[in-house]
């Protein structure tokens, strides 16, 4: 398989966001170990402006903002990745099962998904948190559920679309087993839209989690995360300072870059599906 041979011809709008994402991931991964300050260390006055010592200034307790942002990135990005990954696993597994078994399994799963999707995720999450509290397992479960619903729908419709193609009929006529048909005939043809969807789900998870944290109902303290940092630094706005914009901008940058990559993934393959919601 020679799919990723050449980078030539890849447009700026693809490799630029990809590069930014790689830089951010590396920084978040190794940054905290390299930086002179630890994230929880108080190093100066509150909301100090940007300086050589503190490139992003300091936060509401006088901690180094850069160290906090990198540390917070670990929480936010890894949680979003875990949620997207789990949702992908469950969602595509259930979607393939429904598409392939058909009959009452498909009907039951699809109806259940329709029902859950008729309910706004944020409101559902707020209800769940009101009752169960905002622990990480609760957050991951609720978000995974709602992400999985969308992946289920996409996987199911993709699988159905591909399964009616004649090359699948050829494989069935040959007597191939379900494993070959799923993994060698159907999945390779659905990989591009599914990967794009995975990226979009990652963005959605990051935004959703950050929103909850911003509302004070997301990742519980003391672990810093980007949404929570925006909330903690929000009073700075009252003094005309831009401290909360730093973590907010990080979320925005990551989200924009991942969406751009997903978008170009879909467009270069000529399969444009709506990337929203």
């Amino acid at each position, binding site marked *: 398989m020679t799919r990723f041979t050449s980078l030539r011809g890849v447009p700026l709008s693809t490799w630029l966001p990809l590069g930014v994402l790689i830089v951010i991931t590396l920084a978040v991964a190794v940054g905290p170990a390299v930086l002179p300050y630890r994230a929880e260390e108080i190093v100066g006055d509150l909301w100090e402006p940007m300086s050589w010592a503190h490139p992003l200034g300091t936060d509401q307790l006088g901690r180094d903002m850069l160290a906090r942002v990198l540390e917070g990135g670990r929480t936010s990005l890894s949680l979003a990745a875990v949620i997207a990954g789990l949702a992908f696993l469950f969602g595509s597994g259930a979607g393939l099962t429904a598409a392939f078994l058909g009959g009452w399994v498909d009907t039951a799963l699809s109806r259940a998904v329709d029902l859950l999707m008729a309910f706004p995720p944020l409101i559902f999450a707020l209800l769940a948190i009101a009752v169960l509290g905002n622990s990480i397992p609760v957050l991951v479960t609720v978000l995974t559920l709602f992400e999985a619903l969308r992946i289920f729908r996409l996987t199911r419709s993709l699988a159905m679309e591909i399964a009616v193609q004649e090359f699948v009929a050829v494989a*069935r006529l040959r007597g191939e087993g379900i494993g070959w048909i799923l993994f060698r005939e159907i999945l390779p043809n659905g990989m591009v839209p599914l990967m794009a969807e995975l990226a979009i789900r990652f963005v959605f998870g990051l935004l959703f989690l950050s929103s909850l944290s911003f509302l004070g109902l997301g990742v519980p303290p003391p672990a810093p995360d980007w949404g929570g940092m925006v909330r903690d630094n929000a009073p700075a706005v009252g003094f005309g300072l831009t401290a909360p914009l730093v973590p907010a901008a990080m979320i925005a940058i990551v989200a924009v870059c991942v969406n751009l990559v997903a978008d170009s993934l879909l467009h270069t393959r000529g399969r444009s599906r709506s990337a929203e919601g």
Partner: protein
Amino acid sequence: METTNAAQPILQVRDLRVQAGSQPILKGVSFDLYPGEVLGLIGESGAGKSTLGLAALGHMRGGCACVGGEVLFRGQDVFSLPPRQAGMLRGRKITYVAQSAAASFNPAYTLQSQIAEPLRRGGGASAPIARTIRNLFRRLGLPQPDIFGARYPHQVSGGQLQRAMTAMALAPEPDIVVFDEPTTALDVTTQLEVLAAIKQAIREEGSAALYISHDLAVVSQISDRIMVLRHGQTVEEGTTRELIDTPKQDYTRRLLNVSHAVVPAAVREEAEDEVLSIRGLSARYGSVPVLEDVTLGVRRGTTLAVVGESGSGKSTLAKVVTGLVPAAGGTLTFAGKALRPTLKARDKDTLRRMQMIFQIPDTALNPRQTVGEIIGRPLSFYFGLPRAAVERRVANLLRDIELGPEFARRYPSELSGGQKQRVCIARALAADPDLIICDEVTSALDPLVAEGIIKLLRRLQQEKGVSYIFITHDLGTVKAIAHDIAVMRRGRVVDCGARDAVLSPPFHPYTELLFTSLPTTREGWLEEALAKQPDPDALDGTVPGAGQEAGQANARTGHRRGADRPVASGLGG
């Protein structure tokens, strides 16, 4: 109708060059069209004939650009007209009939209002407009012409829509009508009616016409002159009779050969044992019966052609035989053993012995597998061949289908339509089958490519002794490949027997209708065929009480069996 060359040409195309991006579509095409004359444009896909037709209206599809030459309507360049005048030209002076009428009518409006649209723009009063349209409906043979226009596009049939679109093109009494493959999507019997209606209507209106088609026979029936296009260039141009009777170019001769001089497949009398026997087969989708009491046989090493129009159940027959759709009743015997109804119940060897080739090669090949992987899979799956042996066999199979060994590394998207269909054939052969079911395998291909596929299938049959069920609506190819023919209509076999017996008198009326509806290049064919065509309602009438018709078919084959020679395949044992 002879062209009066003394008149001024109404449309002049001068050295027209069109590109899509950097890809040339038309490489300098010129022709003149005189008032009242019908010019046929013929060519295979990619010849640029649609682009040329649209250029006559001064229209370029998205991505295409005119890079040279000019199109003059009454001496005026249609590409440089100001928008207002272009609007008066299109839809009034030059009109267009598209291939897909169903998609070309706006679903939100009635047919009447869409047909009247260009007339109203010309400032006509509504009563005379309505009268004009009613008259056209009547002349085009549409049912209930007084109220037909009140219907919405999705409420009428495909053949009727195509006629409604012709009415839309003729209503403003245009100087030129451009017909772009108007009958290609229709069944042969419907095609005949629409073709005749179009021919009569343009003759009565006295409009000039450009008639675009890939089917030389169709074009020859309707045109005064024909221009053959290939790869964006003119191959040959001449009056219809000249071009048909004394073609100058080799390419034209080859196109003509496809449509008439088919060498019939050699009669195989020695083969008597049936590789597949179908007895009393029925099938249904939900509660709708699609196959009823079908009894047929395929003799070893021969080809049974199953012929019918859309909705005849011929493709369902293929699906039932292969096990994709379970039978509701009847028995199937394959290679001496009873065939289980579902795919899952059949063993691997049975599956191997029966292979299938589909209509559209693009969807029958997994775009993510190389040709080598596609052809090699049956070898490793059925025979467990090791990798090196698979590669050797694949190279041999590629040679069998007249492709080089380098094709093994290519992906389907790198192949042409004909090459893809060849790969599908090689994949079927790789299983070393007894029977290959070919479901409309040539109907998505250009005539010359299709001819190559037919020749290949025939050669492979002679070399390997494989049997075919050849399902098709294209009656032209039947003569070239079939040993036996079964004619299907509405889920039943209405006629069946050896090829020569079915295709010579006395004919079954439906078989005769099908074969007389098949266009030929013979002068006057259209008029004769139309005169011969029985009232379709009379044929319909015999179907519900189908016992009568089936009995008729039985009696006839029985007669043939006695009179001509024993036929192993036939109705009712």
